[in-house]
């Protein structure tokens, strides 16, 4: 068995373990729902009361507090910077399935890391020079960002989302994008391949976590709106998750880091384009989409600073931005004509 075959074996094992992690995380979500259902009878009422201040927190953020407004808003402000575990309306105790999920994710991550490194050694270069390879490295970075952030903030509830997405992407990569190990064609022999593509993948890792948070934020917001009208919505496990305002702030932090990295991606890409094609910018299809993504996320950052656009609207922008990232990777690379013909397919 050569190194590439070992790499494939390791990758498939990683996928199997990710699948198990996904199941464990799903169990956890189910347990959360159960925990909420069995909660104290007064729960819904208490939550409904909390909803108001959350909603106003979303709308006014820090500004409300600065304007010296009511105590309710100040509480929101304090909460934002507090550890998010304190923020859920239904406290949720220790969960064995959650810990199993994280442990399995770490294991799968290790297997994927091995797969990635072996592929690199087999090819004698960085393992991100065609679609198959950068799907592998990109998803590895998504999980890496997730695990690193976990050491600072408890976002384990995103486990299903992250492992699910990584599984789908790896599945597509292994089945549709697989190519044999090949040397780098002259067009890709550049340090900028190493830098540009790596930073782009890392940015994608942050954007992926951001879109997960924004999605949960929207679900949470809907639930809070339901509660405000005295009803209980579906997806009861949401009660054990942080409030929409907290999720929004977390998403913002993650997306902003992604944006900085993406800005760098854009610049490094321009420098490389100058070296390779004699011009730093030529509106090649891939350049166009990198620009579109950058502009969308700049829009997202502005939305967060625009009255009336904080909250759900900016969350939608983050989701659209990530959809463009995926489109750029999965569709533009494969189907659009341009100078960047490196999908290897």
């Amino acid at each position, binding site marked *: 068995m050569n190194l590439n075959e070992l790499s494939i074996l390791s990758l498939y094992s990683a996928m199997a373990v990710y699948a198990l992690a996904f199941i464990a995380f799903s169990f956890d979500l189910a347990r959360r729902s159960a925990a909420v259902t069995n909660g104290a009878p007064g729960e819904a009422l208490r939550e409904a009361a909390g909803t108001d201040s959350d909603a106003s927190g979303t709308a006014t953020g820090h500004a409300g507090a600065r304007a010296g407004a009511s105590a309710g808003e100040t509480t929101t402000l304090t909460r934002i910077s507090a550890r998010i575990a304190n923020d859920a309306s239904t406290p949720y105790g220790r969960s064995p399935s959650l810990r199993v999920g994280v442990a399995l994710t770490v294991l799968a991550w290790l297997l994927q890391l091995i797969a990635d490194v072996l592929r690199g050694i087999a090819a004698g270069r960085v393992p991100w020079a065609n679609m198959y390879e950068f799907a592998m490295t990109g998803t590895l970075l998504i999980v890496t960002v997730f695990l690193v952030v976990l050491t600072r903030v408890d976002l384990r509830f995103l486990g299903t989302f992250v492992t699910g997405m990584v599984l789908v992407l790896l599945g597509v990569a292994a089945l549709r994008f697989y190519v*044999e190990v090949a040397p780098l064609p002259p067009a890709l022999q550049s340090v900028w391949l190493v830098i540009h593509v790596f930073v782009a993948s890392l940015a994608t890792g942050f954007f992926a976590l951001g879109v997960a948070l924004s999605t949960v934020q929207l679900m949470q917001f809907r639930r809070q709106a339901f509660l405000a009208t005295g009803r209980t919505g579906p997806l009861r496990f949401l009660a054990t998750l942080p409030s929409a305002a907290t999720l929004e702030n977390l998403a913002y932090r993650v997306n902003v880091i992604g944006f900085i990295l993406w800005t760098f991606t854009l610049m490094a890409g321009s420098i490389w384009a100058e070296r390779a094609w*004699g011009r730093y910018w030529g*509106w090649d299809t891939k350049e166009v989409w990198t620009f579109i993504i950058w502009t969308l996320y700049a829009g997202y950052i502005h939305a967060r600073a625009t*009255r009336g656009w904080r909250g759900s609207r900016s969350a939608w922008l983050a989701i659209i931005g990530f959809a463009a990232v995926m489109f750029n990777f999965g569709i533009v690379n494969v189907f659009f*004509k341009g100078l960047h013909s490196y999908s290897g397919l």
Partner: protein
Amino acid sequence: MSRPSDHYDSPAPLSDGAINQPALGPVGWLRWVWRQLTSMRTALFLLLLLAIAAVPGSLVPQRSADPNGVTQYFANNPTLAPALDKIQAFDVYSSAWFSAIYLLLFISLIGCVIPRTKHHFQALRAKPPRTPARLARLAGFTSRTAPAGANAQAAVTTARGLLRKGGYRVALFESGPEFSVSAERGYLRETGNLLFHFALVGILITVGFGGGFGFGGQRVLVEGQTFVNTLLAYDSFNPGRFFDDATLEPYKLTLNDFTVAYEMRNLKAYGQPVDYSAGVSVTRRGQAVDTGQVKVNVPMKAGNTNIYLLGNGYAPSVTVKNPAGVVVFTDPIPFLPQDANLTSLGVVKVPDGLAQQVGMIGFFYPTQAKAVSGAYYSSFPDLQYPVLTLNVYAGDLGLNDGVPTSVYSLKTDKMTQLTGGKTGVKSIELKPGESQALPGGLGSVTFDDATPGAKPGDFSGSVRRFASFDIRQDPTQAWVMSFAVLAVLGLLVSLLVPRRRLWVKAVEGEDGSLRLEYAGLARGEDPALEAAVTSLADRHAALLLTRQSADPALDPIRLLP
């Protein structure tokens, strides 16, 4: 805050409608329009519009990036294409509508940033604001009891020292029995934000205007050929709007050799090129010859231009003689590669010296192979069994019509086909060094061998290669780069430096004890605010304690008269 009025951190409007109503004459109305244009909402709207407007250019080929694609698109969609052309769909990024969006965006940007800059300069010189009356309502509020005997004023002065060392701008306040210090830091955040937006304007201006001072030109060179950097020597030349031909430095560029390395070990990628390398010499007037390599991703500097390697292929050399054996044509002809194994297509035009004008459409196979159907193809990109086939046409080449013709295509509508196709005459088929008679007694054609003395069967040097170079001059690149670096720096600073206010207040109780209060306020995203307040409180209390115990002489009480 001189931010747009709909910035979330600006005071809320008193009531909607009443304030936005342009009830004042033309000046008031203009002012209203200006305020709308420079609002956050407009900036956001224009940004999103710009993103959407950029999409069509990736769906339809663009003249700037892919002119052949546009021609092809017109051929494939004869009715749709002209309609799309009317709305500038093939020139999206220089179209009126795309330009309108980004120009509006940048007007908005400038209109937004200038008042903010003015305001920021004032803020930089202003004192931090008064300490709020009740700190307990603010973020991270915490209180400590000062060591017995501590004095309010001295404790606050100590806190001021701590804050100042931490990069805060500080001001002391006193109201009745309360002493407090108000501190603010992170002005750099706004500075970074402004720097970022200004740098964007810089990029736009240098790209928009500066780009006009350069040029780009293409030239194909066969191994051994030389080119002199003058306007007429280019195969195609695209000057910027303000480009002055006189700035072309007439250096000489010679392609000495072009080497290609192929993957020969990895069977899964067998024959894949792994290196292209053009060995060139550049001679500048009055200077020594400068030899070097131009590679993909590694351009070479020559004078104020850069030389880039864009493409390459084979240039079989063809000689045509008239029936008397006199050479009427001899030249290496660049053939355009059609596939990965370099099956290449080229055209030979012989306008003079034969009974009729002759044109030949040729296929070149570096390693010829025969499919089951009998068709030829190339099975390897290097020269292992090179074969040239030619289909001969005689008649009018159309060179005198005044319409420029491509050297890579042959217009056959006024010509008669003499070999191949339906003529029943076999196409001409040559290996290096071989000759064959042209049909109709027109003369003969030879496929010249570039290394006639080579061992039989060794074709490795038999056909020369060509390289196509892009030569460019762009005097604004360094400017764009500098602005881009400034933009990134500004962005890093503005997104990562927290802007915050901290307050320390000392309140003397009735019993003579001293209570110290600490609180903060984030200006923008600041996840570490509470930790900062707590850490300040801890360090401050510790400092008070050590000062007191370490040196009684420094006891704040004793220091006071």
